[in-house]
């Protein structure tokens, strides 16, 4: 299909109100040719994007020392295709210092979400850009320090005056190094000077929340320095780069804006045949598919490596493939060329169903919104189908040549993250454990069989230096299985732990699928003959597995060992803690008081017993009162 026909079809769809179809075609047009003309076309027809998948508004301000105007339509069109409705304001030429330093400036008044500080080396450090040959070592050092201090001051002042995210362009070297091959021989060269400034920029960014750096040099390198710079255009229009460079800058900005927008893809759903491996399993067979270190198998291996990298970044992987499930599972389990194995996938749909249906099921199974899915498939018909049926799913447009698949995925803005926590790195394994549990649940006859097969072990941890951050975080984040929803800071927990009569216990859970980490907390307060449960909570990862009963049994023993005759506790209902509502009644507590905020429950622990489920083994801390 040529561009003109595609554009005509889009306009026809818009006329009859088929927005999802228009949107699908518009996405395909954009990926085919992301140019200024396409950008103008996309922006004038972005209504169909708004109607079918919604656009999240974001306000961006660009402080710059060069002409960026021609980049803006491309930036906005690319963002619209990715679900963002950008308002872009530009600062004046070289007025960034005034704008940042003046608290009443338009910069702060415009209340942006993201601010780019796009300064070029030739504007902030002209002596290092083309006058370096004139400078001795001392003058170079002085110049470097001047630039670093200038940036430090701007970043600090910006942070004081604004809540917005700040993205600072690092400095780039010229197309030709001023001192030629001498540059790389010398210790204090032009390249070194620029590198020193960039290192200082990174440290300044690290010192502040919400400040990030952009590797300008790497972006230029992606395009190629000789293709990037256009001196004539710089001298005539203050546009430093060529027409082909614009798209690289727009794409780089979009990566940051997308990562900061919160509109992130959390799951990548991939096809199998001709995507994860070369060939069609049903036709070529186990031994015929291409997946090894040579050509063409290496192309698919590179894609698998990319998926693995994304999974380490916290993005879940899932499979949607039209295939014979047993054959495909055999490849995933046994094929020596595969890098990805079943344990990398949080959900799998290998069947002959419609893929839109499979994607809906995957989202439901993982308990995530369908808009957090991205879809990877070599077949343009499947891609188009998913685009029109589920406009909120991010469908990755792939080049015709499979050799470009991995690069295309790595370049996509939807998987960009500006930070990765330990929790992100482990997320994939948690979800895979849950999938394996669900499979076990389906195979187990009764619920008790399922609990037994889980082989659960919990360890009660005394409050301490090594777990207090996690325990405080649990009180702050746990909403569902939480009896009182009392939020504590680390400092408050510390004070509680030291107060006479109160004890804090953490719970670590493990089962046959792995270690779930510290997933629960209880706070017990002892007063005379009454022990009160101040807090009892479990992460949603482990609810519905009788761990709460094991924990309660432990608390009963603790209370009794400390001389209590009654164990009591409040249930304080919130919008979210319904899963904990029947906890006390299920364990035969009696309601002894009710008021506007909740109910108080009590159990006579002199005569009543709460026994630990036989399928859970409990490890108690040393020095613990209960036996």
């Amino acid at each position, binding site marked *: 299909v040529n561009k003109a026909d595609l554009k005509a079809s889009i306009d026809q769809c818009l006329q009859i109100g088929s927005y999802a179809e228009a949107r699908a075609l518009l996405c395909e047009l954009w990926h085919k040719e992301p*140019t*200024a*003309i396409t950008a*103008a*076309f996309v*922006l*004038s027809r972005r209504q169909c994007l708004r109607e079918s998948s919604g656009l999240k508004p974001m306000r961006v301000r660009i402080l710059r020392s060069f*002409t960026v*105007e*021609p980049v803006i*339509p491309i930036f906005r069109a690319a963002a619209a295709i990715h679900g963002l409705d950008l308002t872009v304001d530009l600062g004046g030429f070289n007025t960034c210092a005034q704008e940042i330093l003046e608290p009443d400036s338009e910069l702060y008044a415009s209340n942006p979400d993201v601010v780019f500080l796009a300064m070029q080396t030739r504007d902030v450090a002209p002596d290092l850009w083309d006058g370096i040959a004139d400078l001795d070592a001392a003058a170079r050092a002085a110049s470097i320090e001047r630039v670093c201090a200038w940036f430090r001051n701007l970043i600090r002042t910006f942070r004081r005056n604004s809540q917005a995210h700040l993205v600072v362009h690092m400095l780039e070297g010229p197309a030709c190094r001023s001192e030629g091959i001498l540059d790389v021989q010398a210790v204090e060269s032009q390249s070194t000077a620029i590198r020193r400034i960039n290192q200082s920029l990174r440290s300044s960014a690290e010192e502040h929340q919400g400040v990030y750096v952009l590797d300008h040099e790497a972006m230029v390198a992606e395009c190629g320095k000789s293709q990037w710079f256009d001196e*004539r*255009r710089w*001298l*005539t*229009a203050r*546009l430093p780069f*060529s*027409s*082909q460079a*614009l798209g690289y800058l727009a794409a780089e900005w979009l990566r940051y804006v997308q990562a900061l927008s919160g509109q992130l893809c959390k799951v990548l759903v991939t096809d199998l045949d001709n995507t994860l491996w070369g060939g069609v399993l049903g036709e070529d067979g186990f031994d015929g598919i291409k997946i090894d270190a040579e050509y063409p198998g290496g192309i698919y291996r590179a894609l698998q490596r990319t998926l693995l990298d994304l999974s380490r970044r916290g993005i879940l992987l899932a499979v949607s493939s039209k295939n014979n499930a047993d054959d495909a599972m055999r490849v995933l389990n046994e094929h020596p060329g595969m890098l990805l194995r079943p344990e990398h996938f949080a959900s799998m749909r290998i069947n002959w169903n419609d893929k839109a249906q499979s994607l809906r099921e995957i989202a439901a199974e993982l308990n995530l919104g369908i808009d957090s899915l991205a879809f990877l498939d070599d077949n343009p018909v499947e891609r188009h189908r998913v685009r029109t049926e589920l406009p909120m799913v991010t469908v990755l447009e792939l080049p015709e040549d499979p050799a470009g698949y991995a690069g295309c995925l790595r370049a996509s803005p939807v998987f960009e993250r500006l930070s990765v926590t330990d929790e992100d790195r482990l997320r994939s394994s948690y979800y895979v454990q849950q999938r394996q549990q669900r499979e076990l649940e389906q195979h187990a006859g009764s619920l008790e069989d399922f609990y037994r097969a889980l082989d659960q072990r919990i360890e009660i941890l005394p409050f301490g230096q090594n777990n207090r951050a996690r325990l405080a975080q649990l009180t702050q984040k746990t909403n569902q299985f939480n009896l009182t929803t009392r939020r504590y800071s680390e400092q408050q927990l510390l004070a509680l732990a030291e107060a006479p009569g109160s004890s804090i216990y953490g719970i670590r859970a493990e089962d046959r699928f792995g270690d779930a980490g510290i997933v629960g907390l209880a706070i017990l307060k002892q007063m005379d003959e009454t022990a009160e449960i101040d807090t009892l909570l479990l992460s949603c990862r482990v609810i519905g597995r009788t761990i709460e009963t094991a924990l309660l049994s432990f608390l009963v023993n603790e209370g009794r060992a400390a001389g209590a005759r009654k164990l009591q506790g409040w249930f304080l209902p919130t919008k979210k803690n319904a899963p904990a509502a029947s906890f006390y009644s299920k364990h035969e507590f009696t309601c002894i008081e009710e008021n506007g905020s909740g109910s108080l429950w009590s159990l006579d622990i002199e005569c009543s017993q709460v026994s630990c489920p036989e399928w859970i083994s409990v490890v108690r801390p040393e020095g613990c009162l209960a036996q």
Partner: protein
Amino acid sequence: VSDPAILDRTRRIVATVFDIPTDLVLPESSPDNLENWDSIQHLNLVIAMEQEFGIQFTPEEMEQMLSVELIAALLEEKLKGCEATHGR
């Protein structure tokens, strides 16, 4: 301009870049009589054509692009030059 198709295509590009209906873009349209044809839009237009045809305009050529007709004529000349150098 000897090729009417090139004139037509130029008009459509101008209309798309300036976001106005093609009917409003005439051969004699110029920065003097089209309201939003300022220096930044001129740069946008030049870039759009460079990307579309894979060509480059020199600063001297940019100065000659004073109307839609002149732009089309220049485009025609440059595209011929491309064909000649590519031996087509």
